[in-house]
């Protein structure tokens, strides 16, 4: 049944050199070679996934249908002991947005997958009954999952582990929400690592694939092992450098929750479905309160990293919160507290716990709950629709029940499980106006009226409303990166200001957009690199070169980043995305009602001007938002241009000049 490659990886350094293809319909398993040229051009992670999905998916397919494919890819640095090098990417056409879907998780799964023999897995088709994949040292089995189907995420992981009888096995699985095709379903890897966004758990659910279990003891060959050891030791000698300039120690003590107080203090904490920007009840739910509450029972880390930003929380009263599922991070906490006006910490932790139990994205769930609360306030949904649930702002009992209803697709939950965009269209009567999403992906918790560059990033991110395309403006105010031209001369303090919306800001966001596309392909944790962390881009290039024996330069890597960014854009263009989709929710054109930035808005003309500049910097057609042939050819993506031209998406006429 299984087709194995003959040994081809003599030359391939830094990678395993193999991709596993699993067809669940035919149960055919095969190995393919990872071509070195492809590896150098697309690196891994997001880049490799984009290449595979652009080449193999037909445009317009149903993301929950037979034709969608799920790709899990590691990158060149995955598994090399160095802080931040333990990530992997999960990708497919997203059932939430109908465009490019990707999410990145950290932890032990990525390195384990690589050591099990594969740089990436492609899952196609649909199994006739629930199954899970068991991959160990190039042995692959499709196993019956009927006894774990319907189980909560961690329960399923434990059962699978005990079946396999190897404690070191890493399991990535979906929960009941993924099985029920909730469009915001996530994939949970091990104890506390989640590929949360864009509903990829539903793609697994649609394929009857409950889980993927991996165990590996194979070794990756590196070109210069000693160099990698030196780089690790040098890094360890400089501990502050990884925690970075932004949060010297807070990342361990408070974690990403430090953001919560920061946004509140600077008047940009998304509150009441982005209607307000200061949360009166913030003190009750802040990271500092959590740290002092005694709820945090454990800190955990990813391999090779000494930040240990993860924490698990346990509560007994008034809610029973299981620490195996309650992993509060800023986005989760803010989405389920300030955005819904909930000021009960235990309830927020309970809601996070339920999301992870059932396998649902916490950010999307929070935004959906806030949307439902606003609909309720405006009378667009009534107590009849909610089966008696009182969705008044701040009602924490209702929030907790609502999360469970969404996860089980019960009552009103069935509608909300479709995501904010679909739900708002169905409800109608003006609900679309306050559905806070871009391209269908619920917005993360950053108030873009008070940071203009980030607003542009929301609107132009390839996976929809996303805060990880580029970081927030605040981080660039204090952090420079001369290696890629972000220095005082090119970008003086005045243009790095969070409210500045001129051409230099657009340029900054274009450069860092490419950089982050590279990070997602290497795949590194964004908290360890510019602008959050202290690992230099030169060091990353050194790691890549020491691992592979290549001699990549920073400029080659940046070009690779741009190539990957544009390839994902091309994927979206093929799915019908044009300039009209690159927009922000209307609410951001209204001024902020309070706080230090009171009166600050994101006027449409400012946004349109930024978008024009962004397109021209990217070499995209200004009318359509489609990358031009010249640009694609410059990025060695000529075949992508051909494919877009065949579909009539690239205009034959030369680009209209400004």
């Amino acid at each position, binding site marked *: 049944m299984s087709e194995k490659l003959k040994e081809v990886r003599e030359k391939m350094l830094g990678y395993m050199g193999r991709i596993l293809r699993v067809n669940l319909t035919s149960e055919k398993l095969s190995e393919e070679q990872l071509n070195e040229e492809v590896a150098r051009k697309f690196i891994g992670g997001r880049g490799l996934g984009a290449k595979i999905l652009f080449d193999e998916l037909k445009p317009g397919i149903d993301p929950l249908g037979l034709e969608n494919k799920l790709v899990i890819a590691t990158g060149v640095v995955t598994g090399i002991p160095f802080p931040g090098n333990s990530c992997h990417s999960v990708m497919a056409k997203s059932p939430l947005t109908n465009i490019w879907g990707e999410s990145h998780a950290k932890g032990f799964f990525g390195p384990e997958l690589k050591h099990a023999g594969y740089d990436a897995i492609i899952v196609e088709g649909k199994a006739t009954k629930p199954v899970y994949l068991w991959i160990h040292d190039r042995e692959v089995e499709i196993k019956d999952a009927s006894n774990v189907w319907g189980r909560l995420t961690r329960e399923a992981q434990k059962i699978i582990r005990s079946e396999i009888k190897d*404690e070191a096995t890493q399991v990535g699985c979906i929960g009941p929400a993924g099985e029920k095709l909730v469009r915001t379903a996530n994939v949970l890897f091990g104890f506390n690592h989640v590929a949360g966004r864009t509903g990829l758990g539903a793609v697994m659910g649609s394929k009857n694939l409950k889980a993927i279990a991996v165990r590996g003891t194979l070794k990756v060959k590196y070109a210069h092992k000693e160099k990698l050891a030196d780089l690790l*030791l040098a890094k360890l000698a400089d501990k502050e450098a990884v925690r970075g300039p932004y949060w010297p120690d807070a990342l361990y003590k408070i974690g990403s929750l430090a953001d919560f107080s920061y946004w509140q203090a600077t008047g940009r904490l998304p509150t009441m479905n982005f209607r307000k920007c200061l949360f009166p009840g913030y003190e009750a739910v802040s990271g500092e309160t959590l740290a002092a509450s005694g709820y945090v029972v454990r*800190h955990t880390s990813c391999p090779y990293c000494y930040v240990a930003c993860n924490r698990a929380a346990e509560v007994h009263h008034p809610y029973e919160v299981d620490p195996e599922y309650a992993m509060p991070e800023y986005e989760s906490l803010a989405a389920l507290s300030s955005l819904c006006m909930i000021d009960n910490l235990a309830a927020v932790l309970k809601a996070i716990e339920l999301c992870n139990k059932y396998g649902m994205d916490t950010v999307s769930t929070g935004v959906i709950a806030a949307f439902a609360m606003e609909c309720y306030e405006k009378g667009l949904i009534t107590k009849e629709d909610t089966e008696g649930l009182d969705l008044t702002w701040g009602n924490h009992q209702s929030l907790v029940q609502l999360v469970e209803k969404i996860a089980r697709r019960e009552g009103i939950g069935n509608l909300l499980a479709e995501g904010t965009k679909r739900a708002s269209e169905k409800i109608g009567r003006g609900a679309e106006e306050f559905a806070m999403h871009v391209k269908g992906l619920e917005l993360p918790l950053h108030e873009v009226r008070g940071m203009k560059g980030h607003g542009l990033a929301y609107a132009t991110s390839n996976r929809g409303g996303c805060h990880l395309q580029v970081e927030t403006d605040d981080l660039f105010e204090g952090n420079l990166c001369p290696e890629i031209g972000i220095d005082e001369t090119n970008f003086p303090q005045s243009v790095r200001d969070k409210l500045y919306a001129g051409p230099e800001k657009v340029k900054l966001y274009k450069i860092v957009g490419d950089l982050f596309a590279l990070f997602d392909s290497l795949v590194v944790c964004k908290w360890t690199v510019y602008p959050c962390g202290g690992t230099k881009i030169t060091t990353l290039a050194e790691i890549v070169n020491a691992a592979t024996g290549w001699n990549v330069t920073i400029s080659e890597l940046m070009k690779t980043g741009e190539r990957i960014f544009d390839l994902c854009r091309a994927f979206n263009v093929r799915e019908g995305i044009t300039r009209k989709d690159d927009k922000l929710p209307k609410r951001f054109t209204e001024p902020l009602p309070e706080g230090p930035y009171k009166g600050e808005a994101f006027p449409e003309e400012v946004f349109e001007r930024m978008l024009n500049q962004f397109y021209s910097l990217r070499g995209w057609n200004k009318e359509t938002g489609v990358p031009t042939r010249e640009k694609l050819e410059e990025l060695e993506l000529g075949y992508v241009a051909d494919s877009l031209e065949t579909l009539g998406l690239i205009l034959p006429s030369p680009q209209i000049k400004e």
Partner: protein
Amino acid sequence: MRKLIVCDPDRCVGCQICEFVCSTAKEKSIDSSLSRIHTVNYEPLGNIALSCVFCEKPACVAACPRKALHQNEKGVIQVDETKCNGCGWCIRACDFGAITMHPIKNVVSICDLCDGELKCVKSCPFEDALIYSDLEEVAHKLRRRSVVKLLQEFVGKTQGSA
């Protein structure tokens, strides 16, 4: 009293940095399978790093059929690589899984305390997660911690009932 490397499972986060530092120091390689200290991640209970505990009556020494192992005055088990033929009886005899087979040399390797320059302990990023200490010190710390915890619970309860 003998001193040993002690890992506190409440503080260890399972980052594996000690493993890579050890393999780099002892074998010039970033390969955790060559490390003489091993992290065990037993979710959700926690993490712990294990290495040789320098037993008073080492079972490994007794188990070696070729007398390749010898315990010195500090308690360190020394391996005579000319005698060891990689049979692995010592690995099976050790209760802690602290002995590693070198996959290339096919002889066993055991923590030798790096001549007092403890690189794993020094590089551990988390305060008090990995320490070099004698057992009385460890016991003293544990006593203190449990007393603090008990008192806090006591104080918490009395405040709660008030």
